[in-house]
């Protein structure tokens, strides 16, 4: 008999009188039952979450204070790994490359996605075929996307240079030191623009129609409606997209590995790429690998806090 339910049928209370102690006991029992049921449902997923996410995050902190290699023999060295990080081969390069990559790709992705979304939201029919085509690159694994881009950027028979040649231009060495990182960023634009375009379409369609009707009656031009209505209304959602796209951008690895092998030199060696190199390419850099991972994790956690605040704000204010 569940005493806890508030809407007991009439007459129920008269038949069943509980002494205060009994009431307390039953209440405690019901609470214990709730606790146990809660954990029974949450438990399996939570166990995986703790073992394979919480523990590794804490493990990264522990490993970052060690020196040594993968095959054991590590010892505690305190903050040495962090203090020597700027001087460690490749560490600063990796961080710079990753930041430059994100700084190029994120704005291009979001501006492109917004433009596509505005176009998509504006057309009256035929939207689904465009959505299908624009979204398709999103589903391509990074490794495959990089393979495809080998065919676009090849100096001799690549699509880009073929197009340039056909209009009489000079072929470009796309994966040379000057352009490799930019090409990698543009590859990311190709892969992600569709994702965010559809994200923005959903947001634009959800905007209040009355505002637009009012603006049209007042004679606001299409440009004015975009500038003074759509963009301000979307501000928060765009900011959210900036944060999430940046978090994703900081994780770039597979495309760099396959398209350029991190090169030429270290021109496209990113943070996770470097962690991988420290792990398997050196015998004594496991601590440094963890230290640089931790830098990445902290950056992502800070961005996540911004994102959580944004969502809180959206629920509260708008």
């Amino acid at each position, binding site marked *: 008999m569940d005493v806890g339910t508030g809407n007991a049928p009439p007459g129920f209370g008269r038949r069943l009188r509980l002494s205060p102690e009994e009431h307390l006991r039953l209440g405690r029992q019901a609470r214990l039952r709730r606790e146990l049921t809660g954990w029974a449902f949450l438990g399996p997923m939570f166990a995986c979450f703790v073992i394979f996410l*919480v523990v590794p995050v804490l493990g990264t902190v522990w490993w970052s204070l060690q020196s040594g290699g993968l095959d054991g023999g590590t010892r505690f060295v305190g903050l040495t790994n962090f203090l020597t990080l700027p001087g460690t081969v490749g560490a600063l390069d990796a961080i710079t490359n990753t930041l430059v990559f994100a700084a190029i790709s994120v704005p291009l992705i979001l501006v492109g996605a917004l433009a596509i979304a505005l176009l998509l939201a504006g057309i009256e029919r035929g939207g689904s075929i465009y959505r299908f085509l624009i979204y398709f690159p999103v589903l391509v*694994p990074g490794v495959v996307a990089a393979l495809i881009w*080998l065919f676009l950027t090849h100096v001799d028979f690549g699509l880009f240079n073929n197009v340039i040649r056909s209009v009489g231009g000079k072929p470009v060495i796309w994966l040379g030191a000057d352009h490799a990182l930019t090409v990698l960023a543009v590859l990311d634009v190709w892969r992600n623009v*569709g994702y965010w375009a559809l994200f923005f379409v959903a947001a634009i369609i959800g905007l209040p129609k009355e505002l637009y009707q009012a603006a049209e009656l007042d004679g606001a031009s299409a440009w004015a409606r975009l500038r003074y209505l759509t963009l301000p209304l979307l501000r928060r959602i765009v900011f959210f997209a900036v944060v999430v796209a940046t978090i994703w951008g900081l994780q770039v690895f597979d495309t760099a590995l396959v398209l350029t092998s991190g090169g030429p030199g270290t021109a496209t060696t990113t943070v996770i790429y470097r962690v991988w190199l420290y792990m398997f390419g050196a015998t004594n850099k496991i601590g440094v690998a963890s230290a640089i991972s931790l830098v990445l994790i902290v950056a*992502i956690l800070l961005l996540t806090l911004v994102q959580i605040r944004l969502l809180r704000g959206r629920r509260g204010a708008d």
Partner: protein
Amino acid sequence: MVATALHGAEQHARMRLRRRRLRELARHLALGLIAFVLVAPFYYVLLASLKDGTEIFSYPPKLVPMPPYLGNYRELLWDTGFLRWMFNTLFVATSVTALKVFLDSMAGYALAKIEFTAKRIVFMLMLILLMVPIGALIVPLWSLVSALGLTNTYLALILPPLANPLGAILMRQFILGLPRDLENAARLDGLSEFAIYWHIILPLIKPGLVVLAVIIFTDQFMSFTWPLIATTSDELQVLTVGIAALRAHGGADYGLWSASAVMSLVPIGIFFFVLQRQFLARSLAGALKQ
């Protein structure tokens, strides 16, 4: 007078209609161009995969290879581990999806409907760690998995992805949106908590489950960093790792690479075509999520 005013209004309306049609046409042109640019790379690679080693390099490139050369595909399917990689990817992705949809929907139910003490703090922890990628955790994960004796097993590929809290958070959101009445009625009828979850909640959130399954499956299909580190044996390579190995070893074989790119897009292309709506909801789930 009246007639001319009417005439003017009609003309005005017609002009507005024409302007709207012109604007629609311009939008279609722009979208068509964008879609073309985004899709052209696929065609270019498909083209390359149907040419032999010397034809790939010829300029100007043939835009319709006739007759198509199938040697690249023959080599890919018979002389490399491609089919094995594909099997591994599909097997791991299916296992992860099935397990995760089940575990996440249960966790989501607990987070949405059961009042227990740790709920808030667990949910907060999940939100905070939501975006931490597996790629940033490869050192401790690798040592954990090898300490558990799981290196070079399917379990090493299947278990770590289960930790991602996105699914549980999404499911909580879905279940919170359901009306309370049904579940209260069931409770009064004496249904157990599990029966409520299984017989009442799950059928109601079926669309959400499908979207979640699509998200998990595609993420698994695309995942690379963890499988790369967790496996060293050829038998356990997943598609992405196998293709990266094709690229890294054995010289520049553009024919083989292009064929592998095309073939690896076949399953996801089929899924996408069949489950278009759910796939496109992936983006929308981004708005909901967290």
